[in-house]
Structures are given as C-alpha cells and as structure tokens.
C-alpha cells in the first residue's frame, strides 16, 4: 500500500467538501448580500471560462489565446435573440450558446489548418476579426456598443434582489453543468484518447480514438460553453460592446493566468486557480498594472519550475484525483509495458 489511510481520507474529505460547497452555494441567495451575490456570480462565470481553457489547453493540446472570441459571440448572439428576436432570457441564452457552437464550426475549419503555436496565434487572429466585425454589425451599437433593453433586464427579475439572485443561480447552474459535463467528457472514450495523447501520441492511436476528432470536439465543446458564459456575462454587464464583450484581458489573459497558477491539466487546478486569482485580485487590484506584471511573472515561473501548478504540487502527496476524471484510463497505462 503506497498511500496511507490519512491521504485517502484527505481525498475523501476534499470530495465531501466540494459537494457540501456546491450545496451551500445553491442556497447562496438566502444568506448572501447583493455585493457577494454579484461577486460569486462573477466567480462562477470565470470558473466556466477557466474549465474551458483548461479543457483545450490542458487536454486537447490547443493552447488558444483567442477564447474571448466565443465569449463575445455569445454576448452578441444573446443580444440578438433576447433584444431583437424577443426570445425569453433562458431561450436566448441557450440559442446564444448554440449559435456560438455553430460559428465555431467554420472557425475550427480555419484554425485547424494550423498546428501547435501557429494555431494558438491563429485563434487570436480570429478573435481580432470577430471583435472588429462585431463593431460593424448594423443595429448592435457599433464601436460604442448598446445597452440591453429594460424589458430583457426586467425579465430576469422584477427588482434588484430578484435579478441578482436569478443571475446567481443561472451562473451557478451553468458552472455546475459545465463542470459535470466536462468531467463526464473526460471520462468518456474521447477523454481517454486525449489523456493518452497527452502522454504519448502513439499510444493514443492504439487506444483506438481518432485524435483529430477528439480535439475538434473539445474545441467546439468550449465554443458552446463559452458562448453560454458570454450570454450570462452580458446579462450581468447589461450591455454589449466590442472591446468589453470580446475582452482579451478579462476572458483570456486572466483565465490563462488563473489556470496556470492553479494547475493546468486538471479540473481541480482550474478551481484552485480561480480561487487564488480572485483572492489575489481582492488584495492587489489597487496595484493595477503591477498586479498584471506580478501574475505574468508568476505564470512564467510556474511554467518553468512546476508546470502542473499548485494542484500538481498537492497532487503528488495524494493517492488519487479529487475529481476522478482519469481513473478509467489508468489501468490501460499499466497494461502497456514500459519502454
């Protein structure tokens, strides 16, 4: 036995803590004030962004620096469906996610013409194009953007309290659905293939999964959830505007830093990363640019010294993942003889 019962108990406790946390958060509007409701709503959205970047960069080997493209598309699509097509808020959100997925298909076709680091910068080009195009769509406020009609805002909740609570629950629901769905995706045959690829490209072929298909599915998967998150963020911010809805800093840079610090290649890492990032932000946000310099330096240091981040460090002392996404893969590695 390599792991002591103490370590196993720690993992178990962390799992229970995670579940209790979700349950406790479900009742958040009963005990949180408006400021905290807003704060957590933002945390949940950020969590979705982090899990999505981790999925593509940590598992599918697509190190995108243009994920703000889908967030913005989701935002603009939400505006179109809610303010122009008069769908109700939920329908408009789902439609926005689906449209983001749909637009993701041609985007995939273009950026997958490139590989590795080229693909990374290619996604950035695409995001630039989306941002510029968004300011050109007639009826969406051009470069200065446009505010959501008050009918849409009122549809979320009659007063501020109701609105904040509903937004909170929507964000929590999105984060939980995204979390569970992504964990299931990683536990599926597709996830097995991706994890095999991460370790060894040849082994991946022998698992019998088409790696290119896996990567495309992952990329589109993030298009869907990022679109949904974009719709939600629009509802929070009450407006769309090209530079804000397609914010490189907010929806890509901070997210990358959070995931890298928390630990790339694990869902736990994304959660920890968001928590650390939020904590640091409350403490140091007054320093503005200096804070970003600090985050950049920390990320560089982590990449060079401990590429698996905080969770990677912790995980060494634990017998298994808290969120068991890879247990179905492990027996297969053992079955493969070492070189």
């Amino acid at each position, binding site marked *: 036995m390599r792991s002591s019962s103490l370590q196993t108990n720690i993992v178990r406790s962390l799992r229970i803590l995670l579940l209790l946390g979700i349950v406790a958060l479900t009742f958040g509007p009963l005990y949180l004030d408006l400021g905290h409701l807003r704060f957590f709503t933002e945390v949940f959205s950020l969590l979705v962004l982090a899990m999505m970047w981790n999925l593509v*960069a940590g598992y599918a*080997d697509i*190190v995108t*620096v243009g994920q703000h493209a889908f967030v913005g598309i989701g935002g603009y699509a939400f505006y179109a469906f809610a303010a122009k097509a008069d769908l109700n808020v939920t329908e408009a959100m789902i439609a926005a996610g689906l449209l983001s997925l749909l637009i993701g298909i041609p985007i995939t*076709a*273009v950026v997958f*013409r*490139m*590989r*590795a*680091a*080229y693909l*990374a*910068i*290619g996604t*950035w*080009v*695409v995001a*630039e*194009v989306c941002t*510029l*195009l968004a*300011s*050109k769509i007639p009826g969406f406020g051009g470069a200065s953007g446009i505010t959501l009609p008050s009918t849409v805002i009122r549809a979320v909740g009659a007063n501020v309290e109701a609105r904040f609570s509903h937004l909170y629950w929507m964000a929590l629901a999105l984060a939980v659905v995204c979390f569970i769905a992504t964990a299931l995706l990683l536990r599926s045959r597709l996830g097995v293939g991706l994890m095999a690829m991460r370790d060894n490209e040849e082994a991946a072929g022998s698992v019998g999964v088409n790696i290119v298909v896996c990567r495309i599915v992952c990329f589109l998967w993030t298009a869907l959830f990022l679109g949904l998150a974009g719709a939600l963020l629009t509802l929070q911010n009450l407006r769309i505007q090209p530079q804000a809805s397609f914010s*490189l800093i907010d929806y890509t*840079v901070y997210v*990358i830093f959070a995931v*890298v610090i928390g630990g*790339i290649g694990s869902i736990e890492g994304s959660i920890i990363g968001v928590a650390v990032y939020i904590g640091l932000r409350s403490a140091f946000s007054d320093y503005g*640019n*200096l804070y*970003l*310099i600090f*985050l*950049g*330096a920390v*990320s*560089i240091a982590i*990449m*060079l010294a401990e*590429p698996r981040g905080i969770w990677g460090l912790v995980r060494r002392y634990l017998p298994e993942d808290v969120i068991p996404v890879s247990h179905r893969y492990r027996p297969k590695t053992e079955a493969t003889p070492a070189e």
Partner: protein
Amino acid sequence: MFNGFLNQIVQGILHGGLYAMFAVGLSLSVGVMRLINIAHGDFIVLASFVLFTLCTALGISPFLAMLIILPPAFVFGYLMQHVLLQKIVGSSNILPMILVTFGLSIIIENGLLIGYGPNPRKLLAGDLQIASLQLGGGVTVGLFPLITFGAAVALIFLLDLFLYRSRIGAKIRAVSDDVDAADLIGLSSKRIYAIAMGIVAMTIAISACFMGIRTNFDPSSGPTQLLTAFEVVVMGGLGSLWGTLFGGIMIGVAQAVGAQIDLAWEVLAGHLLFLLVLVVRPQGLLPKE
C-alpha cells in the same frame, strides 16, 4: 477614381515594407529556433519607447538613436535567449513556449503603461516625415514610406547575405537544419541560438525606429504588431526571409484596399486575407516539422 485607387495600392505596397520589417525577426526565430515569440510585438513597442526616451533626452534623431541601441539590443537578445527563452525551445510541448512569451508580453505592456502612461507617442524625424514625391499617373508617395520600403529590402538583403555568406550564418543554418546533429559534432546550439536572438533583437530595434516615425504607438500596440508579423511570416512561407517582403506587401495592399471601402476595414482586410489564404492554400504554409 482609378488614380486614387492606384495610389492606394502603391501606398499599401510601401507600407508592406514596414510589415516585412516587423516580420523578418519573427521569421528568423521561427526558422532557426522554431520559436514563436508572442512578445515579439511588445519588444518592438518596447524598443520604440527606448528610442523615444533617447531622442527626447539627448535631442538626437531617431536614426542616430537606433544606431546607438543596436549593440545593446544584440546583447539584450543574446541574454534573453540565454537566460529565459532557451528553456522553452526544442520541446514538443508548446505550452511553456506560448505561456512564457505570453507572460513576457503582458509584463512588457504593463511595465510600459507604468513608465509612460497610455498616451500614444511618435518619433520625430523632421521634414522627412512630410516630404513626398510625385510619381507619374497621379501617384504621390511619401518620402519616408519609400525610405522605409528601401530599408526593409536592404535589411532582408543584408540578413540573407549574412546567413548565406558568413561563417556564423552557416552555423545558424546548420543548427536550423538539425539541432541535435549540431550538438553531436560540437557546434553548441545554445550559443548559436543566443546569437540568432541577438540578431532578431537588432531587427526589432530597426523596425521600432521606422514604426515609431511612421505611426503612433502606445504601450498596448504590441499585439497588433505581433499579429501582423505572424500573418506575414505564415503567408510568406515560414522561415523565408524574402517571403516576408512578399507577405508584408500582401497585407499592406489588402489593408489599402480595405481602407478604400471603409477606414475601419483597413485592419480587418489584412486579417481576412490571411484567413482566406490559410483556407485556400494551406500547403506550404504549414510549419515543417
């Protein structure tokens, strides 16, 4: 109308020279080290601010300032590679390469914001900036854009000469061909990489000078230069020096044509052309690995 259009095309071609200058350093680092430096654009902007400071403090011309910073730029590039970038090249895992250079980009951008604030700046080169030449057919070109284009051609020519006629050039090409073989026969790739990065930094200093005179720049202009340089490198054929001139002209002309439609389409047209080329003709544009 036609003359106006022709005029725009000529301007676009000349502007392409500047883009080629941005790209030539990136092309070198892609070709030799397989390094895509996301901070490339930010280094150009950083160099522009250094030039700006030198020009204001000493009251000298940007060109003289550029000559002054060329040797320190080489040293800076050499050390940058030696201390940091060497750790992230040569791996099939691209994550460190992207994240480290991305982190650098953020650090430089925010460092400049702290030091200089968000206001746009420009390098002043006196009458040179406004002088223009009348060509036939109603085409008027600015003297400075013409000089920039000429400088881009000269820079590429010199780099080409250096790579194919000098002993260090041969070593750089050897390491680019097969880095492991180089190490096996005692040609230290680490040192050659550092020299190559020093040269890249010199091209950055040169392009910063021309960019700073030609256009406004501010601490957050880096990504725009990076994306342009990247598109130029990919369209011109990865690692090809003369290809960057071709790619630069393509982007420059696309932007000029876009600007004819609507000023806001200027930047968009360049990106769209890049994506179009990627879809239509990906062969030969993909990295050789």
